């Protein structure tokens, strides 16, 4: 799973039926120290997160489909947790 920051709310009208009623966010992946790493992507929110939150992202297709109970949902990235705190211990720092 990935640590990321919610950047913006993605609003769309014309979309695949699966996305009706789903909240989608643009998220920026983060290293454990909070610095951005890698390209921004879109994720479906399942935990009522908001812009600015640090979140936990699950990126596995069949797990996502199981979560939504839909066998043919075109979804992979799902926000599955809001991160309160990351307690990182690195030797020598």
């Amino acid at each position: 799973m990935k640590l990321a920051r919610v950047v913006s709310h993605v609003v769309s009208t014309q979309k695949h039926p699966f996305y009706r009623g789903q909240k989608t966010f643009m998220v920026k992946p983060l290293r454990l120290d909070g610095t951005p790493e890698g390209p921004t992507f879109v994720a479906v929110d399942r935990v009522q997160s908001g812009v600015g939150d640090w979140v936990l992202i699950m990126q596995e297709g069949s797990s996502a489909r199981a979560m939504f109970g839909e066998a043919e949902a075109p979804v992979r990235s799902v926000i599955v947790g809001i991160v309160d705190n990351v307690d990182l211990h690195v030797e020598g720092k």
Partner: protein
Amino acid sequence: MIPGRVVGRLVASQALAALEGVKFLLVQPVDDALADAGAPVVACDAIGANVGEAVFMAQGREATFPLPNTFNPADLTIVAIVDHVTR
């Protein structure tokens, strides 16, 4: 899912039967400021997107589900047209 902007069309008159009737679009991936990020890609269209529109795409196995014949060799499919993003 990958955000992008449709920048063109691609026509492949000879393609695998499973991709018959599928519209291909050229999509420029974008970052959180909707600025270009990386090289353009070819994506299948499942919702009727047009050139100039912001979209997001499903990748990998999930890209196959929205197409008419679900047993197909697609790995990138447009699943939504983005109206706007709010910070």
